[in-house]
């Protein structure tokens, strides 16, 4: 079976305060990047997933997100398959 490179992005839900993002934004503005706004900090995970095809690899990764990688109460996730390894 082929192995796929899968990228998972987990972000705090938009409606919820992200103090980390606020702190980073504040630091950027302090550095003179005045035009920056709505900074949010999440997590990026990369996985090598063995699967029959890209769609199955994505499905598998979404199942991982639902069970462990993201908390549906506080976070959203997005899965991208970046091709075969």
């Amino acid at each position, binding site marked *: 079976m082929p192995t796929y490179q899968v990228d998972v992005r987990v972000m*705090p839900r938009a409606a*919820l*305060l*992200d*103090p*980390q993002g*606020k*702190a980073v934004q504040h630091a950027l503005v302090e550095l003179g990047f005045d035009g920056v706004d709505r900074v949010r900090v999440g*997590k990026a995970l990369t996985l090598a997933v063995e699967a029959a095809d890209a769609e199955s690899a994505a499905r598998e990764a979404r199942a991982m997100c639902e069970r*462990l*990688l993201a*908390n549906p*109460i*506080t976070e959203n996730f997005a899965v991208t398959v970046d091709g075969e390894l």
Partner: protein
Amino acid sequence: MRVAVVRFPGSNCDFDTLRAASLVGADAYFVWHREGDLGGADAVILPGGFAYGDYLRAGAIARFSPVMKAVVEFARAGGPVLGICNGFQVLCEAGLLPGGLMRNAGSRFVSQPVEVRVESVDTPCTSAYTKGAIITLPVAHGEGRYVADDLTLRQLEDDELVVLRYTGENPNGSAHEIAGVSSAERNVVGMMPHPERAADDVLRHTSGAAVFTSLVTCLERLGGGAA
């Protein structure tokens, strides 16, 4: 009565919790996270700390440790379960309590005494308090901001499942100033404050002792264990 204190790699309030339970007469003992059973526990406490280093999210990995299968079964069967601080986070991740806990609104780790009101005495962990009592307990956490969707929050309020509420300063930005909640069946309780750190005369703060007295008393009432 037998009180199991679950230890994960990274638990750090385990000894204080064991002592607080012992001081009120419980036969308290540790259960390692690799264990598959709770050793005939009448009540279970998940102590504070940083289980599995809080990797991924606080409590996210701990909830899948072997012992948690037994804890979930125990809770589903109506057994009293208390999660303190990180233990509260683990119980939310495990789906035994509603909502979740996020980074404190002010970004800072807060370690200070806070005032909380005991909103519900209809739980195995608060029955020895007077409803409405305002007590001072220590908090020590970076991720204690309680969040839940509006429907869940409304249910918590309507069904009186909020157990503790911050009355002074809200130290972490929790929704509805929530410091502790219970499950719909009321046998599972989670709280961010540390009652075990205010449960011994030698510390000169004992307002948390009644959490452990409540547990022991409820077990006696249920006829649990053999002293």
